[in-house]
């Protein structure tokens, strides 16, 4: 290396080295390059295999798998059922999400805070646990509610059968309606009161104002929310399998699972069906994006918006009743019944002092081999997946926000893409990609790690992006010009400042990874069972009490972490409200 002491510098202190060629920023390039390579390997490569698999590779090549996938009546039925499910949940999300959002955002209803929190709770509860709870609640004969209804009305059977299409729609609907609720809530909060007051000054009555002013303003949010709910419902393998299978109703994700789970596995058909599911998702997302972008009158997150709570008089009471019954069915009843079951000797016996036990928790947390292994694996996997996803997300966000490299937008897109892909689809791609050379990790815990990172890297990327966006690049430049190398600047300036945001990113990945089911079910092996697998398998064996104990434990972990996220996001630099400036 050439070192020349600069002539004529003041005070002749350290020598200035010769300029290095631009392309060689050493560590910076290596780290960023590694991140890019890993992202391509974990997201790009499996998606490529999905296409190759649908063409019959590696055994053969041709269109017969695609043709078969689209002509077999079983697949056709699965497609129709899936569409019916999406339509049903979309409509249901509007029917309950919009009134709830109005009640909590704009009305003077009592208990609106409680309702808001409980909607959030129903959203973070893994939907397959809600499905299990609904079997306990509305199993056709032995369900607790059915028995109550029979006792009340003197019926001999039924009356409600959760094992039906409307049962699946209901159970998934009370989970996904949160999308419509939150989007509508935010939009309603962003409508400035002056817009309504202007209408009133012109003589409009209140209902006219709501119909002519509020509703059109928040319509894009409602449509967008309904579409998101519908898209999410397509992908929810857990409730589709847990309720749909006994009900003899097949959906695309359960169909894909069955084509791989029966022997010999039919990779080509599974890939072709996965592509069909991707097509549905992409179409839905494109529609949703179109709605939100072209028709968004309300600038979400705009500052200085003044909203008024409207007085509803006596109408408050039926509204309260409606809201409370929604959150009762979406959060209180399922979590409540799981808790009761977890503590009961036998779930079909009524709760009494003699029927209370901790034995199921003991079985779930200490004695049952699969369950204990599942808990340990889930903690390990979620931690590792969150760490890797945050590192990747940070790299993608850094490239996007701090460099002008060619292709960084594409990379950002690749890192966000899995957000719209059902877990089942990701799993099929990962399975095909990593079952063989060059990285045959099928059957090991690494394939689950790969799947979790690939599935949840969008959450980390968005979060890291938001976090870096808050940090003025001048803070890093000040570090460089003061003499710190790139890596030192990262360590001393960017990371400490982004830490709360990155911790939130970590938790946002950890939470869903901890209870992931739809990809895991296709990828786990003996010894790599997770909590979700333990729950799914123990449910197969009818051990509902142990399953409930495990479910209560899982909800407990997820809930505590969600509260931590909430607390972190509400405090200090991670709030996302004020950019970090010097």
């Amino acid at each position, binding site marked *: 290396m050439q070192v020349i002491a600069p002539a004529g510098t003041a005070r002749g202190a350290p020598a200035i080295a010769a300029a290095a060629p631009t392309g060689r920023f050493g560590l910076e390039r290596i780290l960023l390059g590694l991140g890019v390579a890993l992202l391509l390997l974990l997201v790009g490569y499996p998606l490529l295999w999905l296409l190759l698999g649908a063409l019959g590779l590696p055994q053969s090549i041709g269109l017969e798998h695609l043709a078969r996938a689209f002509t077999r009546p079983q697949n056709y039925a699965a497609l129709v059922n899936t569409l019916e499910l999406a339509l049903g949940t979309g409509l249901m999300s509007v029917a309950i999400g919009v009134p709830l959002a109005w009640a909590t955002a704009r009305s003077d209803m009592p208990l609106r805070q409680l309702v808001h929190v409980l909607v959030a709770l129903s959203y973070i509860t893994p939907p397959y646990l809600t499905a299990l709870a609904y079997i306990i609640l509305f199993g056709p004969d032995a369900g607790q509610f059915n028995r109550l209804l029979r006792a009340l009305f003197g019926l001999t059977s039924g009356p409600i059968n959760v094992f039906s299409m409307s049962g699946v729609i209901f159970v998934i609907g009370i989970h996904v309606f949160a999308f419509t609720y939150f989007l509508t809530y935010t939009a309603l909060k962003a409508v400035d009161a002056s817009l309504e007051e202007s209408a009133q000054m012109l003589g409009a009555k209140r209902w006219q104002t709501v119909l002519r002013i509020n509703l059109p303003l928040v319509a894009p949010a409602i449509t967008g929310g309904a579409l998101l709910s519908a898209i999410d419902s397509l992908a929810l393998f857990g409730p589709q399998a847990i309720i749909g299978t006994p009900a003899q109703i097949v959906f695309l994700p359960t169909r894909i699972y069955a084509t791989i789970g029966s022997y010999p596995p039919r990779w080509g058909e599974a890939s072709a069906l996965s592509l069909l599911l991707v097509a549905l998702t992409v179409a839905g997302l494109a529609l949703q994006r179109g709605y939100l972008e072209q028709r968004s009158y309300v600038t979400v997150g705009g500052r200085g918006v003044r909203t008024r709570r409207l007085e509803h008089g006596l109408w408050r009471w039926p509204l309260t009743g409606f809201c409370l019954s929604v959150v009762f069915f979406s959060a209180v009843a399922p979590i409540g019944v799981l808790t009761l079951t977890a503590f009961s000797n036998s779930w079909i016996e009524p709760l009494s002092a003699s029927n209370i036990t901790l034995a199921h928790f003991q079985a779930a947390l200490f004695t049952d081999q699969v369950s204990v292994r599942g808990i340990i694996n889930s903690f390990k996997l979620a931690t590792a997946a969150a760490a890797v996803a945050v590192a990747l997300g940070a790299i993608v966000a850094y490239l996007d926000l701090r460099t002008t490299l060619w292709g960084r937008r594409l990379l950002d897109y690749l890192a966000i893409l899995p957000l719209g892909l059902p877990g089942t689809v990701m799993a099929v791609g990962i399975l095909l990609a990593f079952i063989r050379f060059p990285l045959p990790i099928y059957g090991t815990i690494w394939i689950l790690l790969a799947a979790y990172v690939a599935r949840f890297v969008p959450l980390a990327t968005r979060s890291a992006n938001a976090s870096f966006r808050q940090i003025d690049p001048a803070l890093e430049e000040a570090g460089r010009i003061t003499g710190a190398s790139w890596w030192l600047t990262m360590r001393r300036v960017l990371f400490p400042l982004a830490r709360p945001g990155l911790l939130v990113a970590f938790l946002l990945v950890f939470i869903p990874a901890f209870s992931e089911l739809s990809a895991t079910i296709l990828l786990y*092996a003996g010894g790599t069972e997770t909590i979700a697998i333990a729950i799914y398998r123990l449910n197969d064996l009818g051990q509902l009490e142990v399953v409930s104990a495990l479910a209560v434990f899982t909800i407990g972990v997820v809930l505590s972490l969600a509260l931590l996220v909430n607390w972190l996001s509400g405090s200090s630099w991670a709030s996302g409200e004020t950019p970090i400036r010097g």
Partner: protein
Amino acid sequence: MPIARRSMIKGVVASCAVTLLRRQAKAQAAGPEDAAQIDLEKAKAEGKVVLYTSLDTQIVDAINAPFTQKYGIAVQYFRGGSSDVTSKVLAEADAGRPQADVVDASDLAALLLMKERKLLKPFKSAAAAAVASNLRDPDSTWITDRLTQAVIQYNSKELGSAPPKTWADLGKAALNGRLVYFSSANGDGAPRIYTLAKHLGWDVVKAMAATKPLRVQTPQIITQVLERGERIAGFLQNDNIAWRSKRQGKPTDYLFPAEGVPTEIGACGLLASSPRPHAAALYHEWWMGPEGQALLVKGGKYSSRTDVAPPEGSTPLSELKLLMLDYAEYKRDKTKILDQIADIFGGEWGN
């Protein structure tokens, strides 16, 4: 300096590769061919054994515990339906990453498929002498470990006086909306349904389907559903579960219809790619041996060994008319059969 380092790395990689290849070769070459060749020390040195099974976890745990205690070899197992077990073995073979040493499934067709794909290793078990020759592979790649009979199970409070006595009774209108049966989404319930159809005609099956029976994903749940009174009669494919429920004093009973009972042959074998061949063979012999089989029987299963008694209080197999499935035929026509059953019952059968 960099050159030296590079060549060193090359050296390390090469020696690792050689070691790996050698280990692979050793693993496949070595390993006992019959029970007499089992080397206890080598088995212990292998440390553990991995079992893929479709047997109920409670029975598996009961069989494993004394084995581990006796030999100090841990048993790690994956338990799923027969299809889960089989598709996992096949997928791992495709991946070139064999995990399992011993496989057991209650669907002989699955083992036949594995044999056809050369995944099973011939091994002359000491148990062969005690198992009828039509219940084991002439090439010694698999051997039947258990026979499981389908039964009619019912809630004894509801149907105690007049239970359905024949398979045809299950299709009567009296059971509309009160019948329960099982199949996983992968079609695990299909072989027994097909056996019934093959011997007694498809009409019996169609009549059952016409009662709009509740489908559950495992046989264990059939019994639970009956115990709770959610349904009153069930086409249960595993007599051991009915046996256990009754013995536990639950309000259920069961019977073997006189028309004959579909019998399911559960078989086990050693995997050719087994990473731990000695421990695998040792475990296989324990599993098939009189002690292991006695534990199986204690869990309510009928052993394939002629020298092991039937479960306590059960009808001896000799008094039952067993309906057998031609597994070679089933394996060949599987897709067609599944399509047919899916047409009759609806839902997902993995076809």
